[in-house]
């Protein structure tokens, strides 16, 4: 399959006075053409940092320590500011979590969407009024001819998120990074937005990296799922395989919670996500893992291929080669 994005050994740290936050600590991941790749993780697992890195939007104090982010074979971490700018918004679009604060309150939404065209095609924003209206139709904003003149505070949350989505798809990018695009919305609106993203993917054959803490949502829309824990990927695989047969103990725990209603009482994951300043040695999940072995606190498991699936666990396909 055709790779759109290839992440290799990516480490992104934040140098803070309290210490170094290892937000992304050795991530390898591919994104294929036209797929929806879900990245699931708790808050503080580094998934938003990963989103910003892919979109080329990292700002200090975030620092790339090592690794490559190859977009169509070009390492976007090594691009000049100008080269990066011509990719941002044109080849890679990003949708953020909170539609309220990600729009500028003092400009009309039509103007803010038109800026994408201005940035990549030049000329006056007014020239692109028709394109913006068409975009608004595409993301199902009612009464688009009037809505382009609305200010963000005059729109509902769902509407604002549609505006942000229309910005991200304006130049028909090859890749859209959606960082918790539905978390700030009502459940009904959530479903509509997810449906919209799915349609966009089919229509534009765009790849979407869908980042969320909501694994249930990913089971519905993602083709593949990558599970992130404390700055590392613990399992990557096809959605139905992950659901049917999770291999990593962390994934197992997450899936068992989802199955709660259908089966019996879930086993809650004890403890909480570790600090990214002082992550536990060895496997980062070992202090919370029900299947923990003595060596888990010493050996940091690699992400290895197990029958087409990637898992990082000493119990699974690791050095002792055992099954689950």
């Amino acid at each position: 399959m055709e790779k759109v994005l290839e992440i290799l050994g990516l480490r992104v740290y934040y140098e803070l006075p309290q210490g170094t936050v290892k937000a992304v600590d050795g991530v390898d991941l591919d994104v294929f053409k036209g797929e929806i790749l879900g990245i699931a993780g708790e808050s503080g697992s580094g998934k938003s940092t990963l989103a910003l890195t892919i979109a080329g939007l990292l700002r200090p104090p975030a620092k790339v320590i090592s690794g490559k982010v190859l977009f169509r074979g070009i390492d976007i971490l090594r691009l000049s500011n100008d080269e990066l700018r011509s990719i941002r918004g044109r080849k890679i679009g990003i949708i953020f979590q909170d539609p309220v604060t990600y729009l500028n309150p003092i400009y009309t939404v039509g103007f803010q969407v038109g800026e994408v065209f201005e940035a990549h095609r030049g000329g006056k924003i007014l020239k692109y009024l028709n394109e913006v209206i068409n975009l608004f139709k595409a993301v199902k904003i009612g009464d688009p001819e009037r809505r382009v003149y609305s200010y963000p505070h005059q729109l509902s949350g769902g509407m604002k998120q549609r505006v942000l989505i229309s910005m991200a798809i304006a130049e028909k990018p090859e890749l859209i990074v959606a960082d918790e695009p539905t978390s700030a919305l009502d459940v009904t609106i959530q479903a509509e937005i997810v449906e919209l993203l799915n349609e966009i993917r089919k229509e534009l054959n765009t790849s979407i990296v869908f980042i969320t803490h909501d694994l249930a949502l990913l089971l519905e829309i993602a083709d593949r799922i990558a599970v992130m824990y404390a700055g590392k990927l613990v399992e990557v695989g096809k959605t139905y395989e992950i659901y049917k047969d999770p291999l990593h103990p962390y994934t197992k725990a997450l899936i068992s919670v989802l199955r709660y209603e259908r089966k019996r009482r879930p086993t809650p994951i004890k403890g909480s996500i570790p600090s990214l300043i002082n992550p536990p040695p060895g496997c980062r999940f070992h202090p919370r893992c029900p299947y923990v072995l003595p060596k888990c606190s010493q050996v940091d498991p690699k992400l290895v291929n197990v029958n087409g699936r990637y898992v990082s666990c000493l119990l699974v396909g690791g050095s002792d080669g055992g099954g689950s």
Partner: protein
Amino acid sequence: MTLVRYLVRRVYHSIPTLVGALLFIFILVRVLPGDPARLIAGPEALEEDVQRIREQLGLNKPIHTQFIDYVTAVLKGDFGRSIKFGTPVINEILFRLPYTIILALVAEAIAIAIALPLGIISALRPKSKTSYIASVISLIGASTPVFWIALILIYIFSVSLKLLPSSGADSPRHIILPAITLSLVLMGNLTRITRSSVIEVLSSNHVLTALAKGLKDRIVITRHVLKNALIPIITIMGLQVGNLLGGAVITETVFAWPGIGSLLIDAIFFRDYVLVQGIILFMVLVFIIVNIVVDVIYAYVDPRIRDVLWRMS
């Protein structure tokens, strides 16, 4: 039309403020020590003469009658006659006003011209030399008394270098020192507010969106950072101009600048309570007007405020 309706409503809502201010001014002036009637009559006047003057001024009437007389007169546009000059108070104020206005505008213009770029650059490049200069200026502006700045400037430019006149308002050159003095004080505040406002907007999420679109840094800064950062800066500028239009008492006195501020000092020293009343009332009016103007500018910059303001009217 909405703007006109809004302005009408604002003026209407200013009435309680104005009445409160009138009462406050009236009481304040009455409790000041010193008997104006005796002052006018002179130290060797007879008791009858003092009494006569008191009656002329209406000072023998009960205090509430005096207040009603005062308010009625003010509503008719009559601010009374100055005891010292014998002329209508309004004439005295209007005669001094151009001097105060020009001094206020020149000082504010100098302050804006220097403080805004300084504040912006120091926010964008926190470790640069400009940023260092900006902190020094805000420190000096915020911590140095005006009269001291004035004296130092007079010492350097008038006494030592003999370059600029130190008092009066006879030529355009006379405005230079008082304007610089005032602007230094304004600059301190303005630089600090500009800097912190720009820093705050820089870290806001919508700036990230602007970057994600692929906009040029220059456009992101001017369109999505500076314009948003302007809102708190406008407040400070409005307050500063409002303050200055009421007369820069100390600066005008030190440089013998014939504005409202020095008129007020003269009036106080002469116990010219009518004039004092008039000037303070004038200051209140200036403040009310400046506040309305600032709100309108606000509404122009920020559509959220525009919606709220217009909807209320």
